[in-house]
Structure formats: structure tokens, C-alpha cells
């Protein structure tokens, strides 16, 4: 391997460790279990969404609706518990169903209605942003809120549901690891194993690289594509559940950044280990990279409004790594 190959392969990982080393010296308290957990927690929800969108990137598609699926799931969870006074299990099931159904519709629009993926999921994004406001006439959902018909909603977030956002597991130190971080790690390992080691994941990569060749190798290409969007929708709804559990209310103003952050993490993932293709490990590293950078900068008192700029710079650099240096862009 030439120096250039090494640079492409390990460049981003080296950059990541360099960053950690720099912050360890420059920012007090950066290297501590609590700080590490905080970083994981800050990227848990975007990470889950990013892992989902990775599945659609693998089949050569894209899913812009993930952010709005997550906020819709959050609003639905709040509505089910606060207004309909149901328990945590019902809320979770409803959220997962919403994710799966939106994924099916996205897949159907793209595969059978031949709507280009970006446009279909953009349309779905708008639709959901509007839809989630209709039941409450645009109000956020919290216990004691007044409903459009004048009645008062008396349900409340169940403790079991809130535990998804607030419970912390003991890990050497008592009350260290939040549930959301465990969910992120479990889903990351699951999707990584699925994409790398099962025949379904392998065929999804084949569909994304050469759809015609995959079809002539006997694969039901349409089904694979639809499944990718279902995975993406379900992952986004899990992100929405975690968001609702963390906030404890159905907040219509939250989750604005989810889509961009998740997509950025997945795209940064292309550059990790010179993969030059969507991959679960890279997505997870990409999400962490952004989390570490923001945590470090915050601890060094960088103002909050520089965050989006920093994320943008990281994304552009990662894309240059992927497309210019590895030469995969021209095909």
C-alpha cells in the first residue's frame, strides 16, 4: 500500500484520535467517564437515525423523512399517553408502527410510483411535519393541556416510558450509562452485523451498486429497496421514542436538527477506513466524531452558534476524503 492508500484508509481515524488527544490536553475534564457518556448520549438519537438512513444509502437511495418520522413518533407517543391515557407499551408499539408504515409508503412511492427517492421522501417529510400538528391544532402535548374541544388532557407520561430517557445503568460507576446509549450500541451492532455478515445485507449492497446485475442474479430488487426504507423508518421512530422519553412531553419545536445531523453522520461514515460506501461502523464513528468535536469545543467555551458551521466543515472534509482521494467518485 502506498502512503496515499494509508492516508485514505486511516486518515479519518487518525484525525479522530488527534482530536481526542488535543481536547484531553486543552480542555479540563474532557477525559472522564462522565464526559464520554455525555458524548454518547448527545449523539444517541441522531446516531440511531443515521444508522437507519445508512440502510437506504446502501441500496442507492436516500431518506429525507427520518427527522420528521422521529418527531411524528415523539408526538404520537405523547398523544397516546397524555390524551388517550394508554400505557408505555402501547405508545412504543404505535411509534414503531408509524415508522414501519411510513417506510412502506416511501418504498412504494419510490419503487412502484417511480418517484425519485429524494423527492418522495422530501414530500413525505412535509406531509409528516404537517400531520403531527393536526390532532392538537399545532400545540405541544403535555399533561394538563387544553384540547381543541375545550376538555383537559389528564393522561401522563408513564414512568416506564420516561425510564427510556432517564434511567441509567450501573457500569463500574453507579448510574453511568443512559438507556439511549445502550439502544444506540445495540442497534449499531445489529445493523452492522446485518449489513456485513448476512446475505440480505450483501444483496442490499449489490442492489445499490448495480441494480441490474442484482436482478439478473435472482434478487427481488424491489423488495430489498422497500425493506431498506422500512428499516430507516423504524430506526427513525426508535429515535423519536428516545426523544419523547428524554423530553417528557410532545414538543413541536424539537428535533429540527435531527435530519441534517443524521445524514451528516452517515456521509462522514463513507470516509472511515476508506470504505467509500455507506457502512454501519463508519456511520457510528461519524456520529461520535461530531459529538466529540462539539463536546470538546463546548468545554473550551466555543459559542453554541458555531456548532452547525463546525459540523458542515467536518462533512465537507469527509466528502473530499471519500470522493476525491479514493477516486471512487468518477465512475
Amino acid at each position: 500500500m502506498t502512503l496515499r492508500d494509508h492516508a485514505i484508509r486511516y486518515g479519518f481515524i487518525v484525525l479522530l484520535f488527534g482530536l481526542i488527544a488535543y481536547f484531553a490536553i486543552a480542555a479540563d475534564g474532557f477525559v472522564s467517564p462522565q464526559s464520554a457518556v455525555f458524548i454518547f448520549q448527545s449523539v444517541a438519537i441522531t446516531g440511531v437515525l443515521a444508522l437507519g438512513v445508512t440502510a437506504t444509502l446502501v441500496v442507492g437511495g436516500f431518506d429525507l423523512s427520518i427527522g420528521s418520522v422521529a418527531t411524528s413518533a415523539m408526538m404520537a407517543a405523547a398523544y397516546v399517553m397524555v390524551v388517550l391515557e394508554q400505557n408505555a407499551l402501547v405508545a412504543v408499539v404505535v411509534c414503531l408502527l408509524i415508522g414501519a408504515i411510513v417506510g412502506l409508503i416511501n418504498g412504494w412511492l419510490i419503487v412502484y410510483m417511480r418517484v425519485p427517492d429524494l423527492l418522495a421522501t422530501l414530500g413525505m417529510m412535509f406531509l409528516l411535519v404537517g400531520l403531527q400538528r393536526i390532532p392538537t391544532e399545532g400545540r405541544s402535548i403535555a399533561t394538563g393541556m387544553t384540547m381543541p374541544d375545550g376538555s383537559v388532557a389528564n393522561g401522563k407520561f408513564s414512568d416506564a416510558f420516561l425510564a427510556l430517557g432517564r434511567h441509567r445503568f450501573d457500569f463500574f460507576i453507579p448510574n453511568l450509562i443512559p438507556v439511549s446509549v445502550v439502544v444506540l450500541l445495540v442497534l449499531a451492532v445489529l445493523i452492522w452485523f446485518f449489513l456485513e455478515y448476512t446475505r440480505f445485507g450483501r444483496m442490499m449492497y449489490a442492489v445499490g451498486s448495480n441494480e441490474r446485475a442484482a436482478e439478473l442474479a435472482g434478487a427481488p430488487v424491489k423488495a430489498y429497496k422497500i425493506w431498506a426504507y422500512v428499516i430507516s423508518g423504524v430506526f427513525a421512530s426508535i429515535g423519536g421514542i428516545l426523544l419523547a422519553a428524554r423530553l417528557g412531553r410532545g414538543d413541536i419545536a424539537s428535533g429540527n436538527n435531527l435530519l441534517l445531523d443524521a445524514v451528516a453522520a452517515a456521509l462522514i461514515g463513507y470516509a472511515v477506513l476508506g470504505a467509500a460506501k455507506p457502512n454501519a461502523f463508519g456511520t457510528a464513528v461519524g456520529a461520535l466524531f461530531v459529538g466529540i468535536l462539539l463536546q470538546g469545543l463546548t468545554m473550551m467555551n466555543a459559542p453554541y452558534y458555531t456548532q452547525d458551521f463546525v459540523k458542515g466543515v467536518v462533512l465537507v472534509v469527509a466528502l473530499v476524503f471519500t470522493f476525491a482521494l479514493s477516486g471512487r467518485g468518477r465512475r
Partner: protein
Amino acid sequence: MVGNAVFRAEGLRKSFGHNEVLGGVSLELHAGEVTVLMGANGAGKSTLVKIISGVYERGDGTMGLAGQAFAPNTPAEAIRAGVVTVHQNINDGVVADLDVATNLTLDRLSGSGASFLFNPARVRRQAKAVADRMGLAIDLKARVSDLSLADRQVVAIARALAHQPKVLILDEPTSSLSSAEADRLFALIDRLREQGVAILYISHRMSDIRRLADRIVSMRDGVISGVFDKKPLDYEGAVNAMLGRKIHLDQIVVRSSDKAILTIEELRIAQGARPISLTLGDGEVVAITGLVGVGKTALAETLFGVRKPLSGTMVLNGKPYAPETTGEAIAAGVFLVAKDRGENGIVSGFNIQENISLPFHKRMSRLGVLRRRLERSTARRQIEELGIVCRSEKDELAALSGGNQQKVMVARWMAQDAGLFILDEPFQGVDISARRDIAAKLRASANGRATLLFVTELDEALETADRILVMSEQTIVGEHRNADVDLDRLLAEVAGGPLHSAA
């Protein structure tokens, strides 16, 4: 015969890297004549056309137009000098979302002298002038996307002819037209011929060629292999010059078989085509040959479940066979090495091992998890079997030569035992030694299955097959046992006309 050539090319050469595509081509075109250029895929036709039309720079040689030197650097220069080309893909020549009038004057929107503002009235006036000169009966306000393919083609040609060219090049203009639509195009070409335009017409369709040609030029392997201008034109000679035997090859030991694997009854693959019936036997290698566009790929895809036949039945190993999907075909033991590996075969993000295992993931996994060790040992075995030159089974396909890439495609489908093994143009873009390797492997492993090859080049059929079938107009028109083949009869069948001796 018109005396002086309007266009003359001498000793044109062109190489891409080490690959010489044109090896000294000389060509004359005469005013008021249709010269047909014939050649198989890769013979160098498109390269020649692109040099004449200014798309490619020529490597060596000279060109002259109407007695003056002609050396276009861009397509625009060629058009200004009077050489106009209408390319094969009709929709490349027109803008579908604009109306006919704008399309007819599209080339006046840019370049020197074009006005800054778009003036609809002037455009319509100019377009009307163009349309009248060509005798065009198309509504100028219609959107091109609402027109038939033939009308779109006519619009593209009419615009090209607004410059009153000396030479018009038509690259397979009828490849996507119906025969009625083609007739309208032919009428237009007849009119142009009367107006004294020199026309270079590139086609594979024998019916077009018989209808239009004043002269035929055959190309093969980057050189002109025959010029035919004596009336009546020698069509079989032209086909022979394009496809016939180059060198005498060792005769193969022809086998025949009495155990049927696949029986096809009255299969129709296109509207108005005569039905196909044939039987393929165990251990037999059968080649189906014919010109481009006669339905070879359609038949291959029908057998593999990509498309459905209009009527007819198939029986595979005694059981009815009617695949709905490629997955069903594979499950029934019918494998297809599709033509054009870049488009239909290679997954470029995958290495050799992953490309080979692609169709057989299910057989190579346990509980959905791929058995990588089995995958690797299969790939290694296939690399060994077919003599694929590579560093390891982890190599990317882009690093391999064309011949080795094709071997990987064949190896992919030979990793499991087939009942019916179909290969569509397996020797396309493959060097001679890889071609020999693949053919030898196919013959050596033929027992226990039926092998069906679709090839355009006769040599490829003659050096691999036990039996050669000829396709023309979406059906089988001839059958030959590959021992003392009557080449004249075979060529006549390929050319789609009656034998000279019978005429």
C-alpha cells in the same frame, strides 16, 4: 456511378491506450449515394463516425471534403464544414420538453451570431422555412415529447439538414423505429439522395440495407474488410466480410445428444414474429447466431424469466417451465451470463469473491449469515478452474483485464451446476486467449447440462458449438451441425434473403 467522391478519408488510425481501434481506414462517399457501413460490435464503426464528425481527434491519416482538407476539431466545426451526424439515440438529438419549432432551430440559439434574446416569432419563421424545405408535415407548436419516435428522428434530421450538408451520417437510425415509421424515414432519405447529399448509413438491419444501399462497406477489427458496389449488391459477401472466418481454426469434435434438457414449442418472442421451436440436449453446446437486433437477447431473457413470451411453452427436464422472475429461473437450474458485463454483470463495489458468490447467497449461508469460508474457497476454486489472472480473490474487478472480468462472470455461474447454461455474447470485449479458455472450459464441462450461446460473430459459433442455429427477425431460420457447415447457406440465412443460387 458518380465519378468524384465528395468525402475522402485515407489511412485513418486511432488508438485508445495500447488498444488500436482503427488500423488505417480509407473511405469514400459519393454525392447522391447511400453508402452502408456494416460491422459487428467493436469493429470500429462508432470510432470512425466520431472521427469524421469531429468528436474524436484522429490518430493518423487525412480527410478531405469537396477537394479541400477537412480536419474538424469539434462537432460544431464539422457541421459548419458540411458534415452532419444524426446519432443512434433519438432522444439525444431533440429536447423533449420544447416544441418542434424550437427544436428545429436549436442550433441557432448559441454560437457566434446568435442573438441574446429569444424571439419566438423569429424562431417560428425560421422553423417554418426549415420544415418547408424538408416537406415536413408536423405541427410546429407540438411538444416533442408528444411526438412518435419517428417524428422525433425526422425533426433531428431536418434540423441537421437545415445547414444543407454535403455529407449526412445516420448512425443506426431505425434501431428503435417500427417498420411503418422506418418507411417514412426511408422516403426522406430517398429525397435527400436525389438532392445530391452523400449519405453514410450505419445499420445492422438487412431489410434497411436491401432497401437503401447503393454501396456497402464492411468493417472488421478496425479495417475495411470489403467494399461492394457492383449491382446487384452482394449482401452475403458483405456479411461474410464482416463476420466470416478470419483464420482456419481446428475443427472441434462435434457431439450430439439424445437426452433432451430443454424443449421449446411454438415460442413467440415478438409481435408478428414466427414461433420458435427447438430442443437442447444433454452435453450439447448450441450457438445461436444472427445480426444485432434480431432477437437473440430477447430469447435469452425469455428463457431466464426476465421477460415473458407472447405464446408458447417450454419444458425443462420433463417439467413445464415458465419462470416469472430470474430467481425462479435460477432455482430451476437455468443460469444466464448476461451480455455487456459492465452494465448487467459486474457489481463494481464488490471484489472477485463477492462477485462470484452473488447469485448463490442462499446456498452459501446458514440462517441468513453468509459462510465466508465457503465463499472464499468457492472463489479460489473458480479462479483456479478458469485460470483467472489476479493477485487474490480479494481483488477489485476494475483491476482486471476485460478477458479476466468476463472469466469472473462465467465463473460466477459455473460455481454451481446448471441444467441449462445460457451465455449471451460471452466473448464481447474479450481477448483471443481468454476467449479460447472460456470456450474450452464450456466444452469440457458440458456434460450434464445443455449449453446455449448467443453470438454475433460466426467464428465464435464455429469454434465452440456442436450445433449452430441462425436467428433472423425474432425467430430461428436455420440449423447447422457444426461439421462441414455450408457457410454460403449459413451466411444467406444471416443476411435474411434467398440464396443466390436459388434466386
